């Protein structure tokens, strides 16, 4: 049919379309594809939205994800599970519990006490944002929220250290307890820094790694200092 059309057009238009007379579409090539437009969801079983599942399932899914990330932080193998599915529930829980534990009941005293709840909150979140901006400005390839997620989750060892410090302080606040607290806080500080560096260092350009690791070190150092100098009133 196309050849006949080409021939007809060629005869009518003269030498202008002479080359088209040779063009032909072979009828051997099958034309494939679906041109029907799907109207609505034609298979209701495939679209099982999360609105229909029990509330327990929804909550347990997120809790399991958070718990898995906690385990990843305590045993930092080189896995990218923390980086792929970021969530900020874990950092929020850790930040709030750390800030609550740092309240020594100094609201009654008039002296310059430890950090207020809002101060701890601001330091952790603002510090994490600044470090993330720093690493992105230096050319890092990690996304904003992924970096916040990693930095927040790596506060977990320090929260554990705070818990241990409060328990040790219940037993007494002499020199021995201070040395125990110092060792625990230093160990957890090292653990936090190493864990976050293990997750974040790969996304940086190789000749700027130290420039990115140093602010992380400073961040966890400040948090460790707040934990170590906690004195109950």
């Amino acid at each position: 049919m196309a050849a006949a059309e080409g021939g007809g057009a060629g005869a009518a238009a003269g030498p202008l379309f002479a080359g088209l007379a040779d063009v032909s579409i072979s009828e051997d090539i099958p034309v494939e594809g679906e041109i029907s437009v799907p109207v609505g969801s034609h298979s209701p079983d495939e679209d099982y939205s999360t609105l229909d599942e029990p509330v327990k399932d929804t909550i347990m899914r997120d809790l399991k994800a958070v718990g898995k990330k906690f385990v990843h932080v305590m045993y930092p193998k080189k896995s990218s599970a923390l980086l792929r599915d970021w969530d900020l529930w874990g950092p929020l829980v850790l930040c709030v519990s750390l800030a609550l534990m740092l309240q020594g009941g100094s609201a009654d005293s008039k002296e310059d006490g430890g950090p207020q709840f809002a101060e701890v909150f601001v330091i952790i979140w603002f510090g994490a944002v600044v470090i993330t901006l720093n690493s992105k400005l230096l050319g890092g390839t990690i996304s904003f929220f992924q970096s916040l997620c990693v930095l927040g989750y790596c506060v977990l060892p320090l929260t554990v250290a705070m818990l241990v410090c409060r328990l040790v302080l219940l037993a007494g606040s002499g020199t021995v307890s201070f040395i125990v607290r110092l060792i625990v806080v230093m160990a957890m500080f090292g653990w936090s820094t190493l864990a976050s560096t293990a997750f974040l260092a790969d996304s940086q350009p190789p000749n700027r790694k130290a420039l990115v690791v140093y602010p992380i070190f400073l961040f966890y150092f400040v948090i460790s200092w707040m934990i170590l100098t906690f004195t109950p009133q």
Partner: protein
Amino acid sequence: MAAADGLQFPEFADAASLLAANPDATTISIEEPADGTKSQRGRQQEPGREEDDELLGTDDSDKTELLAGQKKSAPFWTFEYYQTFFDVDTYQVLDRIKGSVFPVPGRNFVRLYIRSNPDLYGPFWICTTLVFAIAVSGNLSNFFIHLGKPTYHYVPEFRKVSIAATTIFAYAWLVPLALWGFLMWRNSKVMNIVSYSFLEIVCVYGYSLFVYIPTAILWIIPQKVVRWVLVMFSLCLSGSVLVMTFWPAVRDDNRRIALATVGAIILLHALLSVGCLAYFFDAPEVDFSAPIVPAHNGTTLIKAQ
């Protein structure tokens, strides 16, 4: 040079073979300034040119000069614009810190280290580190000074961190702003050879504050003499970096204005240092609560508390 054979264009196929024929020729290689090329150039050039290479400094000087005109072309509301201020590698930051701690007399910090690539990484993180160093050291020092007293109850004094942060960041940003404005104003009246951009001034001030970090840590030692010696020493080091940077920018001006400017720079720097020492570090007290008692083996004991 290879001999031209009539109108036939000579084949410059191999530089090495040409130089084998004529070893004293001056060669210019237009390849990328990689490490191997530079050492090759060094071997083939006349010995007199090595001095120029040393003055030029590191390998990336050619690249930096070429790229200087292409920087900061992104509009200021994009992220890439701010990325140009963080275009430094680890070794560059370390070099700049080294240059601020060991100032070479006669060498300008901006010309030698910044070289049209001012960065905001150094000033920002040095200021942050200094804030926490002063707060932590002050707290530790007060703890050790008041340790034995029965009425002393240790407090972490967390308020002082925000005061330290306000002071140091204000100094590191407002003083360069004022200085830059002043230099621009004088530039419109007197033609100066040397002029600095705002970011270069911020860079110099930021890196010059680095020497105060070990100074703040050493201020924990509760001896008045030690502290004041440290103040003088750090003021000399960082002050000399600032003076050597800004003296060429004002020396063409009226003599008195030039001296007043440099004097004001040093005075503000000294005020920062002395103010931090006075506010964050309590004075070490020495009480003579007992008269001098000669001990059994002849040495005298002074009971200090």
